[in-house]
């Protein structure tokens, strides 16, 4: 099936003139040093699905914005080389004309709308391209039906879920009736089931409308089945692979891994094996929660939560967006106070802990590392906790040196934390929690939107801490990660603990998985497909 599809792609390519032709494109924000994107050339063909991979920070998004002519003008950057749309140089198009041919859905669901309601946002697009008013209503209804949002027409966008927001973004772009649809990591901020729904929707729309699709992504798995061609961008901003998926993954496997790209799990499946889930050598109890209730403005967020956590344990809290996962983590960290119930931390009620000693024994890593930075340099950031605790100067210096080495931040000692790269920010945000080895370390979706290399680095640091005796708690959507690393997992559904136990047990409980909108990890899906069981959560 897949091969057949590929052959079609090959045929399309040879017969048609390219929709987009990029020749020797270079781009940078300033003229100093090597450019961000360096001398790349490629074509996108009519009706073809092309996927661009590359580690975060390699300039993937920049390429997409160069294609529709928004860059370099929008950011006052410099570019060289030529881009042709159907044989015509893009600078010859009038302002706004090219944007109608090329629609883009961006990564961040929060910042791609300018109107309050779905209806007005869709109208905005049609007004831009001067659709006559009489035609607007019917066009809007058609597109809403195509993406399955008819019921949400009059809702304010900020009340929708991430998945719904991305569908609104897709709908408003479809109203342009573009020849090329660019998707810039559209599912990076979505939970797994919403993400799969979005991918399938794009697949369907592409089949119905036959437009070319250009996908920028580092989580390839769901896209790869209908991708005709794959491009790969290196950290230096050079294009090093261009061809059919099978060809590229065979030929460039090593290079891709070293570039920090998530390979499709089809290829790396040999290295995917579950954690050895031993519960024998666990230490004493770290946290115990009894009959916990939490309400926000009379709305129950958590109810009747009961569980204990032990030393040397790696636990995942999973569930749909809005199930109360982050709230539970914040209650455990003592930054939210429960309405009912008891939390004991190291055999002492959480309420009785002094703020300072509590923060020494417990760490919390936020989803967005930037939220945690409070000083102007990496050094001060690391020293902050120790200064607060009155650690002697000499000891502090040694500790900071050790942390810098360990987290590979030696060269950035005096950099501003905000100027670091994504991976470096993530590492620093963890390092700031480790001035003393904590007993409990809480993570709120730490691997969201991170590339393979950053995720891998993070996981090895976490495992090291776990082996030292720290209890690790992850709130995550990544079920492969749960399968690979966790001893136990808690499923939250509508504020209640719907399941607790070993992940292996969870994979058998289809009811729980469907209810909480969870996907099976790739390893299990593959096993089941091989055994002939058809398992798909979305339908």
């Amino acid at each position, binding site marked *: 099936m897949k091969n057949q599809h590929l052959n079609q792609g090959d045929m399309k390519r040879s017969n048609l003139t390219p929709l987009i032709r990029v020749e020797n494109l270079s781009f940078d924000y300033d003229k100093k040093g090597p450019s961000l994107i360096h001398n790349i050339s490629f074509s996108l063909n009519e009706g073809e699905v092309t996927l661009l991979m590359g580690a975060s920070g390699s300039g993937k998004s920049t390429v997409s914005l160069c294609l*529709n002519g928004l860059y370099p003008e929008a950011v006052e950057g410099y570019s060289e080389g030529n881009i042709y749309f159907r044989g015509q140089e893009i600078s010859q198009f009038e302002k706004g004309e090219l944007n*109608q041919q090329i629609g883009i859905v961006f990564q961040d669901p*929060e910042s791609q*709308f*300018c109107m309050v309601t779905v209806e007005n946002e869709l109208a905005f697009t049609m007004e831009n391209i001067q659709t006559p008013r009489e035609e*607007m209503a019917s066009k809007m209804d058609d597109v809403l039906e195509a993406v399955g949002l008819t019921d949400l027409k009059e809702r304010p966008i900020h009340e929708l879920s991430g998945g719904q927001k991305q569908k609104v973004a897709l709908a*408003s772009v479809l109203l342009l009736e573009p020849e090329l649809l660019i998707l810039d990591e559209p599912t990076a901020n979505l939970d797994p089931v919403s993400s799969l729904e979005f991918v399938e929707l794009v697949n369907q729309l592409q089949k119905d409308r036959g437009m070319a699709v250009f996908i920028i992504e580092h989580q390839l798995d769901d896209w790869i089945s209908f991708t005709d061609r794959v491009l790969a961008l290196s950290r230096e901003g050079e294009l090093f692979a261009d061809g059919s998926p099978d060809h590229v993954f065979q030929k460039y496997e090593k290079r891709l891994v070293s570039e920090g790209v998530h390979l499709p799990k089809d290829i790396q499946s040999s290295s995917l094996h579950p954690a050895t889930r031993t519960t024998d050598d666990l230490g004493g109890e770290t946290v115990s929660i009894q009959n916990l209730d939490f309400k926000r403005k009379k709305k129950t967020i958590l109810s009747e939560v009961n569980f204990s956590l032990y030393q040397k344990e790696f636990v995942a809290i999973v569930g749909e967006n809005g199930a109360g996962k982050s709230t539970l983590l914040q209650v455990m960290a003592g930054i939210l106070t429960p309405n009912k119930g008891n939390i004991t931390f190291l055999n002492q009620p959480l309420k009785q802990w002094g703020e300072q000693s509590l923060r020494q024994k417990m*760490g919390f890593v936020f989803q967005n590392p930037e939220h*945690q930075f409070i000083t102007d340099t990496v050094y001060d950031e690391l020293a902050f906790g120790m200064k607060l605790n009155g650690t002697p100067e000499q000891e502090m210096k040694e500790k900071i040196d050790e942390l810098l080495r360990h987290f590979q931040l030696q060269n950035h000692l005096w950099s501003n934390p905000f100027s670091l790269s994504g991976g470096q920010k993530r590492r620093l945000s963890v390092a700031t929690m480790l001035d003393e080895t904590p007993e409990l370390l809480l993570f709120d979706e730490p691997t969201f939107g991170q590339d393979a290399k950053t995720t891998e680095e993070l996981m090895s640091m976490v495992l090291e801490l776990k082996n030292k005796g720290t209890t690790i708690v992850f709130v995550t959507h990544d079920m492969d990660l749960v399968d690979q690393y966790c001893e136990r997992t808690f499923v939250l559904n509508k504020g209640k603990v719907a399941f607790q136990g070993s992940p292996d047990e969870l994979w058998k409980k289809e009811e729980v998985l469907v209810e909480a909108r969870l996907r099976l990890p790739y390893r299990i899906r593959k096993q089941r497909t091989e055994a002939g069981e058809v398992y798909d959560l979305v339908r």
Partner: protein
Amino acid sequence: MISSVNPALKMVAILIPGVLLSFSFDIFTPLAYLIFVVAFTFMFSNIPVKKWLLVFTPFVFLALGFAWMTMLYTSEGFSGGSVLFEFWWFEVTTGGLMVGISLALRSLCFVALSLMFILTTDSTKFMLSLMQQFKLPPKLTFGILAGYRFLPTFKHEFEVLRQAHRIRGIGRAKGVKGRIEQFRRYAIPLMANAIRKAERVAIAMESKGFTGETDRTHYHHMTIGKKDWAFFASIVGTFFIVIITSYQLGYLNIFGRQF
């Protein structure tokens, strides 16, 4: 209904009496007009009385504060009349008292007029009508609308930031210096994020074909019809009727000059 009146014209209708009222220093004019505005608000809109009072009441106290201060510190031009009472070094005259009460009533008129506008106007439609009726450039109106969307996000982000700082061991700021330091710590990440988001939205808008040009079609066609002029006439007309009545009864006082 007031909520269906063209927002741009509604704004003008409210601004005219709002500005002109500032010149009348007697008690009768603002009082009569205030009664009219409040009655009009409740007759032609379905704003819950409770909600209206909740917003209005704090301003009553503010207005009383204004009146008290004005009464004590009336400039000599207005402080005619007999001395009512004295304490410490203050002398309260009938003129001062009049000016004070008038100021309070005028402030309440502004508040009532503003509430009538704010509680019955959809911000999106207001912007669209400014663009369609008053030819405000789309760049500006859609810019403001995009900014308006950020308000809830901003609040959420501030909350997260506060929590993150608590995790790092920073408690509540103490003293003025601590507060300034805390403000600086919050401001940088908040600003950094806001700028990044604004940039993203701008790019998303442009990529949907927005050019900032005025040649665009309109989904919500904002018009000015008979009903809108009727609203305008009743708000502005009543104001002049009140002024004329006040003049004929001999109350009217503009900038201290009795007519």
